[in-house]
C-alpha cells in the first residue's frame, strides 16, 4: 500500500480515537494500549490501584477485529513456538517501561498531539530503543521460528478474552471498576467495543505498528508504517486544537516531566517492541490472527502491569499546585528507577542471546 493511502487510514484511526475521547475516554489516553491493558489487569484484581481498574472494551475490540478479519481473509494461522517465555518477560519489561513513562507509543503520539513537551522529549528514548533493537537485528537477532499448531491454540485466547469481557457485563460485581481517576472515564461500552473492532480490522489490514513505523524508516528507508503514525498524530492534533485542548506545556493530565525517566521508560518500550517484533498494539493484533507467541506477550503485559503497580514501579503523575495542595513533581520512585535499569540490562541480555546461532 502506498504511504499516502496509509496516511489516510492513520487519519481515520486518529478520528476514531478522537471520537472515543469525545464520548468519555480519558482525553490524552483515548486508545492507549498500555493504559488500557493496565486497566484490565486492575479490573481482574491483579493489582489494587483503585484509579485504574476497568475492563476496557477497546482492547477486546482490537483482538476481535483482527480475529474476524483474519478469518474472513483466510489469514488466520494458529502458530506458536518462537521462544514464548522470553516473549513473556519482554512484554513485562515493555509494560514496566510504559508505566514509568505513563503510556505506550500510542499514548506518546496522543500526548505529543496535545502539546506535551515531556512526550516529545520521551520520544528520543523511544527512537533510541528502536535503534538499539535494530542494532541487534542487523547482528542477526531472532527468537527463532514459530510453527503451525493445533487450531485451538490460536482460538483459545481471543475466545476466552471475549467471554471474560461478556462476564464483566453479566457479573459486574465480580470485577473491579474505578469510581474515580482515569479508570472511571470511559465511553459507553458498546461504542468502545465497536470502535475497537473497527480499529482492530484496520490495524490488521494495514499492519499498524508504532515501533515498526520507526524501525522500517531507519532500517529499510520505508515510510509506509510511519505514515500511519503521522496520520493519527494529525487527526488528534486537529481534534485537540478544535476542542481547545492543544496547549504547549510540560505535561498534561496523568503524566510527568521527569525527562530522564520518560526517556529511559520509552527506551525500554522501543527496544522491547523491536525484540518482540511489534509494539503493544501489534501484539494484540497478532494474537487475534492466531499467534500464541503474541498471546503469551499479552499475558506478559497483563502481569507486567500488575507487577508495576503492586511493587510501586509505575510512575506517579505530576500535578500543578492548587489552593489545597502543593505541586507534585511525579515520576517514578526509587523502585521504578531500579526496575527500568534492570529491564534495560535484561533487554541487552536477550538481544545478545538472540544473535547467538543455535543448531
Amino acid at each position, binding site marked *: 500500500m502506498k504511504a499516502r493511502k496509509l496516511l489516510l487510514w492513520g487519519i481515520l484511526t486518529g478520528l476514531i480515537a478522537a471520537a472515543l475521547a469525545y464520548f468519555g475516554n480519558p482525553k490524552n489516553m483515548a486508545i492507549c494500549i498500555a493504559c488500557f491493558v493496565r486497566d484490565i489487569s486492575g479490573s481482574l484484581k491483579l493489582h489494587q490501584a483503585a484509579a485504574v481498574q476497568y475492563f476496557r472494551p477497546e482492547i477486546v475490540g482490537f483482538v476481535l477485529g483482527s480475529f474476524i478479519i483474519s478469518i474472513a481473509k483466510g489469514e488466520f494461522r494458529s502458530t506458536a513456538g518462537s521462544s514464548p517465555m522470553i516473549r513473556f518477560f519482554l512484554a513485562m519489561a515493555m509494560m514496566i517501561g510504559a508505566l514509568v513513562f505513563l503510556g505506550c507509543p500510542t499514548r506518546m503520539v496522543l500526548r505529543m498531539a496535545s502539546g506535551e513537551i515531556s512526550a516529545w522529549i520521551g520520544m528520543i528514548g523511544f527512537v533510541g530503543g528502536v535503534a538499539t533493537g535494530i542494532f541487534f537485528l542487523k547482528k542477526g537477532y*531472532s527468537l527463532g521460528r514459530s510453527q503451525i499448531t493445533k487450531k485451538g491454540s490460536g482460538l483459545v485466547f481471543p475466545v476466552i478474552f471475549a467471554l471474560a469481557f461478556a462476564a464483566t457485563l453479566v457479573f459486574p460485581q465480580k470485577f473491579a471498576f474505578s469510581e474515580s481517576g482515569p479508570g472511571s472515564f470511559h465511553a459507553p461500552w458498546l461504542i468502545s467495543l465497536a470502535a475497537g473492532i473497527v480499529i482492530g480490522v484496520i490495524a490488521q489490514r494495514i499492519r499498524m505498528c508504532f515501533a515498526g513505523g520507526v524501525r522500517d524508516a531507519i532500517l529499510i528507508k520505508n515510510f509506509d508504517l510511519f505514515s500511519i503514525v503521522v496520520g493519527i498524530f494529525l487527526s488528534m492534533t486537529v481534534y485537540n486544537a478544535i476542542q481547545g485542548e492543544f496547549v504547549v506545556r510540560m505535561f498534561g493530565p496523568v503524566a510527568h516531566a521527569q525527562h530522564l525517566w520518560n526517556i529511559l521508560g520509552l527506551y525500554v518500550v522501543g527496544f522491547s517492541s523491536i525484540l518482540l517484533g511489534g509494539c503493544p498494539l501489534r501484539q494484540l493484533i497478532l494474537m487475534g490472527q492466531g499467534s500464541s507467541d503474541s498471546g503469551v506477550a499479552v499475558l506478559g503485559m497483563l502481569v507486567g502491569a500488575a507487577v508495576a503497580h503492586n511493587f510501586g514501579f509505575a510512575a506517579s503523575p505530576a500535578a500543578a499546585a492548587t489552593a489545597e495542595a502543593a505541586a507534585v513533581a511525579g515520576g517514578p520512585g526509587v523502585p521504578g528507577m531500579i526496575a527500568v535499569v534492570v529491564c534495560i540490562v535484561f533487554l541487552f541480555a536477550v538481544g545478545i542471546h538472540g544473535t547467538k546461532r543455535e543448531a
Partner: protein
Amino acid sequence: MEVDVRGLSCPEPVMQVAAAIRSGAEEIVVLLSEAHSVANVKNYAIEHGYRVREATKGFDYLLTLEK
C-alpha cells in the same frame, strides 16, 4: 536461490530477502507463512526492480521474485 522465512517475526523476513537481493540473485523463491510478511516482501522486491509471482503451498505462501 531459495529463502525460507516461515515462522520468523517482523522484520526478519524482509531482511533475509534484502540480503538475497543484495547478493545479486536473478531469481529468488521465498517461502512464507504469514500474510503480512508476504505484503512486506512483495513491496520490497517490487521497489528493488523484481517481478513477483504469488502462489500458495499448503498452509504456506510462495513468492517467486524475478529480475
